[in-house]
C-alpha cells in the first residue's frame, strides 16, 4: 500500500519499521475473514485491515482520538490475521507500535491508567498473585457471580522429581502458573525425567514480560526480560540444553527476546541466545524418542484448544494434537479452531464483553464433540476456558503424564 509517513515519525526506528510493514499490505481483506473481533462486531474498524488503516493514518499525521485507541484496545493480539495474510504483513509488530504511539497521542484517563497499572503490578508478581489467589479460592463460594467464576479451583501439588540426569533443561515457572496450575510443570518434569532429562527452575526468574509489554508498558516488559536473562544465565553457562515453556503465551514472548533487546548492548547477545534456546513443550518432544514412555491412553475423548500464541504466534500447528493421538487419545472435531478463546493475556479483564462472547463460542465448539476432557497449552486459555466449560480442562502434558506406562 502507498504510504506517506509524516516527518515526525519518518526518521524514528518505530516509524520506519511500521512503514515497512504497512507497505507490504495490499488491502486484499483476506485477514478480515479470520479475525475474531471482526466476526463478532462486523465493523471494518474492528478488523485487522481497518486497524492497519487506523495506524497508517496516525503515522500520516491525521488527527487521532480515543476511537483509534479503542479499536486497537479491542484487538486480541491473537495474530490470526498474520496466519491468514498471504503477503506476510507482521501485524503483531505493527499493533505494538500503533498502541505505543496512540497512547502518547491520546493519553488515558486516571481510572483506566490505574486499572492497567494494577494488572501490570499484580499478575506478573508471583507472591502477590499467589496470595490473592489463595484468598480468592478460600472465599470462592461466597464471591458473587462473574467474579467468583474467574477464580480457578484449588489444585493439589504433585511431586517434582529430584534432578538426577546429566541432561538438564530449565523451565519457566511463570508468574500465574505455579499458583493456579502447579501440576503442569510438575507433569512436564516427570515426563522429561522418564526421557532422561532433569527439568529445573531458576527461582529468580519471573514473568516473561508479556503482561507489561502488551499493556504498553514496554520499558517494564523489557526490565522483566533482563531479569529473566540474569536468572537463567548461570544454568545456561553450566550447559543446560533448553528453556522449556509450557505456557505458549510466555513462549512466544521469550522467543522474541532477541528481537526486542537487540538495541541493548549489554543484553543483545544473551537475549539472542535465550531466544534460540527457548522451546515450547511440543518442540522438546520433537527431538526425543517417545517410545520409552509406553503411552497407552484408553478411550478418552479429548477436545484440543490450540492457543493463538501456539498456532499463530509460534506457528506450531497440529503438533500437540499429534502427540495426543499417538498416545492413544481420541481427538474430537473442533469447529473454528483458529479462533481465540477470549483470554488473550489481560483481555478478559480489560474487554469483558467481547471476551465473554468469544468464550461462549469457544466452549460450544469445544464441547460439541462431547469430550471427556479439554486440553490446551497455555495457562491463560486454560483458566479462561475453565470458567465457562462443564468439561474439565488440562494441559496436554498433564494428559501425557497421566498415561505414561510403567
Amino acid at each position, binding site marked *: *500500500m*502507498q*504510504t*506517506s509517513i509524516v516527518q515526525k515519525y519518518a526518521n524514528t526506528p518505530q516509524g520506519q519499521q511500521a512503514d515497512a510493514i504497512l*507497505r*507490504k*499490505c*495490499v*488491502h*486484499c*481483506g*483476506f*485477514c*478480515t*475473514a*479470520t479475525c475474531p473481533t*471482526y466476526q463478532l*462486531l*462486523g*465493523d*471494518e*474498524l474492528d478488523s485487522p*485491515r*481497518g486497524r492497519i*488503516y*487506523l495506524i497508517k*493514518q496516525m503515522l500520516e499525521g*491525521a*488527527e*487521532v*482520538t480515543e*476511537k*483509534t485507541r479503542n479499536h486497537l484496545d479491542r484487538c486480541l493480539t491473537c495474530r490470526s490475521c498474520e496466519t*491468514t*495474510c*498471504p*503477503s*506476510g*504483513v507482521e501485524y503483531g509488530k505493527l499493533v505494538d507500535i500503533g498502541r505505543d504511539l496512540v497512547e502518547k497521542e491520546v493519553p488515558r484517563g486516571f481510572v483506566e491508567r490505574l486499572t492497567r497499572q494494577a494488572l501490570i503490578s499484580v499478575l506478573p508478581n508471583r507472591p502477590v498473585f499467589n496470595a490473592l489467589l489463595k484468598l480468592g479460592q478460600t472465599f470462592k463460594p461466597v464471591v458473587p457471580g462473574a467474579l467468583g467464576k474467574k477464580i480457578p479451583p484449588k489444585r493439589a501439588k504433585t511431586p517434582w522429581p529430584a534432578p538426577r540426569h546429566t541432561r538438564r533443561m530449565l523451565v519457566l515457572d511463570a508468574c500465574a502458573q505455579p499458583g493456579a496450575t502447579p501440576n503442569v510443570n510438575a507433569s512436564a518434569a516427570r515426563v522429561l525425567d522418564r526421557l532422561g532429562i532433569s527439568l529445573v527452575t531458576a527461582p529468580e526468574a519471573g514473568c516473561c514480560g508479556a503482561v507489561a509489554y502488551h499493556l504498553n508498558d514496554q520499558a517494564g516488559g523489557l526490565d522483566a526480560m533482563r531479569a529473566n536473562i540474569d536468572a537463567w544465565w548461570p544454568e545456561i553457562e553450566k550447559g543446560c540444553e533448553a528453556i522449556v515453556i509450557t505456557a505458549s503465551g510466555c513462549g512466544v514472548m521469550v522467543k522474541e527476546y532477541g528481537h526486542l533487546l537487540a538495541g541493548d548492548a549489554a543484553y543483545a547477545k544473551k537475549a539472542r541466545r535465550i531466544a534460540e534456546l527457548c522451546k515450547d513443550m511440543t518442540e522438546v518432544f520433537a527431538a526425543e524418542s517417545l517410545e520409552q514412555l509406553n503411552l497407552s491412553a484408553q478411550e478418552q475423548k479429548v477436545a484440543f484448544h490450540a492457543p493463538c500464541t501456539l498456532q499463530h504466534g509460534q506457528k506450531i500447528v497440529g503438533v500437540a494434537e499429534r502427540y495426543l493421538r499417538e498416545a492413544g487419545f481420541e481427538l474430537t472435531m473442533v469447529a473454528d479452531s483458529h479462533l481465540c478463546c477470549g483470554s488473550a493475556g489481560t483481555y478478559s479483564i480489560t474487554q469483558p464483553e467481547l471476551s465473554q462472547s468469544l468464550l461462549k463460542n469457544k466452549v460450544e465448539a469445544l464441547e460439541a464433540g462431547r469430550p471427556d476432557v479439554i486440553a490446551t497449552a497455555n495457562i491463560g486459555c486454560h483458566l479462561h476456558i475453565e470458567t465457562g466449560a462443564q468439561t474439565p480442562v488440562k494441559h496436554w502434558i498433564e494428559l501425557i503424564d497421566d498415561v505414561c506406562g510403567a
Partner: protein
Amino acid sequence: MTAIQSGLLDQAIIDDRRARIVPKLQAILSSDQLKVTQEDLAPFETDGLAPYRRMPMVVALPTDKAQVIAIMKACQSEDIPVVTRGAGTGLSGGAMPHEGGVLLSMTKMNAIQNIDPDARIITVQPGIRNAAVTQAVAPYGLYYAPDPSSQIACSIGGNIAENSGGVHCLKYGLTVHNVLQATVITIDGGELTLGGESLDAPGLDLMAALIGSEGMLGVVVEAKLKLLPIPQVTKVVSAAFDDLGTAGRAVGDIIAAGIIPAGLEMMDKLSLQAAENFLNAGYPTWAEALLLCEVDGTAEEVQEHIEDVTQVLKTAGAVEVKVARDDAERELFWKGRKSAFPAVGQISPDYYCMDGTIPRGELPEVLQKISDMQDKYGLQCANVFHAGDGNLHPLIMFDGNDPVQAEKAQQYGSEILTTCVEHGGTITGEHGVGVEKINEMCVQFPGEELTQFHALKRAFDAKELMNPGKAIPTLNRCAEFGHMHVHHGEMPHPELERF
C-alpha cells in the same frame, strides 16, 4: 498513486448534505453503526483496489432490512447518493465511496437465515462470507459452487453485484447460475423479490439483470443460493512447464480432448514462487508455468479423466505431472492458487491486477506479448489466471510511493487491455467495471447498448442515486473519451484521476 481529488463536490455542499442526513440516520442507527468523522471514515475510503480512494461523507452499518429501508428512504428524500459496500475486496473500485454520499457497509448483516438440505437451498443475509456458506452446509454434504479466489473474505452481496466467478466456474457456472432468489431494496425503500426457488420463475427475469449490476439498481438484503452435493471424488493434477507458451497451448489441448475440468488454472513463475513462499504447498518453483487441473465426479469418471488429462499434458510438453496425493494436498494446491494475488505483495509493495479475457486459442501469443511488455515499461508482471475460460489476471508490480512507476503501471495495464480486445477478448472477465474500467466501456459498447443500460437503471432508480459514476459511463463521457481515445486509451479520466 493519489486519492481522487479532482472533480469532487465542493466542501460546502458536502457539509450541507451531511448536516441534513446525519440527524435522520441517527434516528435509525445506534452510535456505533454510524461513522461521521475523518478518523472513522478513512478506513472505508478504498476496497481491494487500493490505488482508488475517496472519502465517504458518512458510513452507515445497518443490522437488518428495516434499517436498510429507512436509510434508503432518508437518502432518497434528501437526494443523497448511496454506495453499497460488501467485504471491500472488489478489484475495480465498485465500492469506492462517493464524497457526498452514504456508504452502506453490509458487514453486520451476515447471518444464515435458513438451511434446507432437502431442497438444497440456503437463505443468507448479504454480508456473509462466501466461504462461510460452504462451511455451514458441509455437514450436509453440500457446498456452494462459485468460489472466487477471494472467497475466504468476499461477501455474497458483492458476489451478486459483480457476478463473480471462481476457479470452478468453468464447470459450475458463475454467480448468476447459482443464485435462485434475491430480495432487493430500491432507493425509494421498496422491496423487490426477484427470481424464485424453481429453476424458471414467471415474469421478466430481472434476477439476471440484478446479478452483475454493481450495486446500481438496489441493495441486496437477502439471497437464496443453490447448493450442490459434494462430488464423490475430486482430484487435481498439477503440471509443470518450462515454457509459458507451451502451458498456454496445453490448456487448449485439454478442452479440445473433450474434457470439462472442474477447474483449470495457471500460474506463472513469479506468482507460483510467491504462493510457495506463503504456504510451502510444494509447487515446483523452477517451473515457468504451472497448470492445475481438477476433475470431479464418480470414482470411475475421475480415474478415467485423470488418466486422459495426464496423457494430454505430457504430450503437450509438461515436464512434470503429478496428482495431489490426498484431499489435504489438493486443498493446499488450491489455497496457494487462491492466495497468489496478495502473496505477490511479498515481492512488491503494490500491484495492479488486470482482468481481461481472450479466446483460449490466443493464450500463447497474448501471454508472450504481456511478458515482452515488461522491458518496455521497466516493471515486472506476474500472471495468475482462470486458464480454462481465458480470463487473464496479469499483476503489474510497482511501487506506489514512486509516481513514475505508478504512471507506468497504468500505461502497462491499458496496453494489456487493448491487446485483449485486439485478440477478440473483453476488458473484464469477472472483477466488474467499477470506476476502474468505466472508460473502456465506451470502447466495448459503441452502439445503442449504453442508452438501454441507462434506461434500465432509471427504471429502478430514477434519480440515479445508487452507486453513481460506476459501471456504465454517460454518453457525454464516452463522447469525450472517444475524442481523446487516440492512443490505446492512454488518457486521464476527465474527472476521475486514475492513479
